[in-house]
């Protein structure tokens, strides 16, 4: 390469010195250099000697400082730096999001607690555990409050066999319900409101809610256990103890607290028997 061309480099460096964003500066410098190189080549082709061609090329490009001023006005650095910053932020955000979001999706927080050791939706499970499945209903009783939708999806009547510890075996009639609580917003919390449920049936029996009662009690009671069952759902398992399966025509679950009066009416006639 003819050494005189270093003057092109100097000229370009001076001309782009006003451009603040470095990648722009390099790119424009390359373009200007290429332009000068082409012009220089044309002059050589016209028969001019190298030294003269260099001088003529630099002269043709004009005052580098005046060009620098014009280029600086055109090449504002804001969008360049902004684009670079968005790239960095995006990469960092993706890294810190992938880990917890992966846990959110693939973790197993939604393995439902079956409470009684089996899922009441599985009719076969009753016999396997030594109990007797009687009847299944799909009540689909829905109540909405405070943005939450509560739906009783399953109702199962069955005989619960247990040994109270005195060498005898006892059987109690039980109505089990699954109630799903849904909220469309992923950040809406689901809290244990099941402890405030109580029930009354068509025979006039009242079932107060308690978690302290255990299955060995022979009293009327309702107990409700809840579990997160999906990103937007929480599921309560309701156990209604000492329940008259044969004569009860309906049961109503109540939640009446702080001025709210929510009721789920469940018709217990019909359904699939064993």
């Amino acid at each position, binding site marked *: 390469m003819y050494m005189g061309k270093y003057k092109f480099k100097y000229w370009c460096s001076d001309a782009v010195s006003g451009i603040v964003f470095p990648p722009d500066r390099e790119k424009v410098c390359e373009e200007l250099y290429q332009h000068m190189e082409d012009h220089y080549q044309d002059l050589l082709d016209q028969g001019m000697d190298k030294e003269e061609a260099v001088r003529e090329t630099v002269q043709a490009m004009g005052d580098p400082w005046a060009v620098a001023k014009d280029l600086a006005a055109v090449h504002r650095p804001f969008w360049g730096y902004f*684009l670079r910053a968005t790239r960095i932020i995006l990469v960092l955000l993706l890294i810190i999001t992938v880990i917890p*979001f992966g846990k*959110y999706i693939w973790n197993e927080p939604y393995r439902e607690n079956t409470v009684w050791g089996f899922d009441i939706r599985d009719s076969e499970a009753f016999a396997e555990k030594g109990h007797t499945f009687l009847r299944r209903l799909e009540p689909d009783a829905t109540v909405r409050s405070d943005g939450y939708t509560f739906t009783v999806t399953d109702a199962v009547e069955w005989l619960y066999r247990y040994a109270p510890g005195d060498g005898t075996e006892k059987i109690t009639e039980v109505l089990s319900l699954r109630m799903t609580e849904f909220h469309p917003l992923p950040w*809406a919390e689901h809290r244990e409101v099941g402890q405030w449920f109580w029930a009354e049936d068509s025979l006039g029996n009242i079932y107060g809610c308690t978690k302290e009662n255990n299955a060995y009690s022979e009293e009327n009671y309702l107990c409700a256990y809840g579990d997160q069952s999906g990103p937007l759902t929480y599921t309560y398992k309701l156990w209604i103890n000492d329940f008259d399966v044969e004569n009860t025509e309906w049961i109503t679950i109540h939640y009446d607290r*702080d001025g709210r009066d929510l009721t789920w009416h469940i018709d217990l006639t019909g359904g699939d028997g064993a």
Partner: protein
Amino acid sequence: MRKLKNFWLRIPRRVRAIGNAGLILLVAVTFYVSIGAPTLTEELAFRRAEKAELIGPSDILFNEDVKNYDYQHLILAETDYGVITYVSDETWSPDLCYTEKTGDITVVAAPKGPFNWGYFNFEVRLPVFVVDDVPEAIRAELELHIEGTYVIHLNGEKLEIPLDHHYSLKADREAEHFFRFQLELPFVSTLDDYGNDIDAKHGADGYALDLLAETFSNLEGRLPTSSASITATVRLYDEENDLITERELTLREPE
């Protein structure tokens, strides 16, 4: 890939930057949801909690950083039907407790105290509120009587701690609808200061305060089986220091 890169580079820089900013917003929202969408203020957290409890919306009466041992922030709120106490800190889930109103005067305590252990090495403070609908009252007296036994299990042994505590508290009205009282135990630096005797006065005082706090807690399994009862006498006075009303309330029945 090269075609895609060339296509991307042909897009004006301004459009690419705005596109990236949109992606950042999308990823940021995903991140926020994935970490449980924490609220920015205690009040927002409280609003979310009361909605999840299917109570309220309530009027917030007291909303302050109290920097107690077990919690940092305390909110007192009322609805037409009840009084809500809510405490939160940075470590544990917040506790929200709803108490049905007892007419125009309701007594509640913070739903969390320094439970069961460690009444040494820090001060024990339990805020107690009288929520009232007696606007002419400017001064209140609260007498609390805690009597019975408090049951704890220590090293597998069941202990019944006798309680017979009487507290007389006074407060001037700070704000509408409530009076704030504070039950306090003196600072005790080590166990030796009151001995290892579980029935020591200081320990029993602590259990009395525990029982009061736990009465207004809906945390399962926290409430001890106890034969203790808690009664309160509230007296409200007007500007002339004349008694407006006196009310006897049973806060806890013996089990």
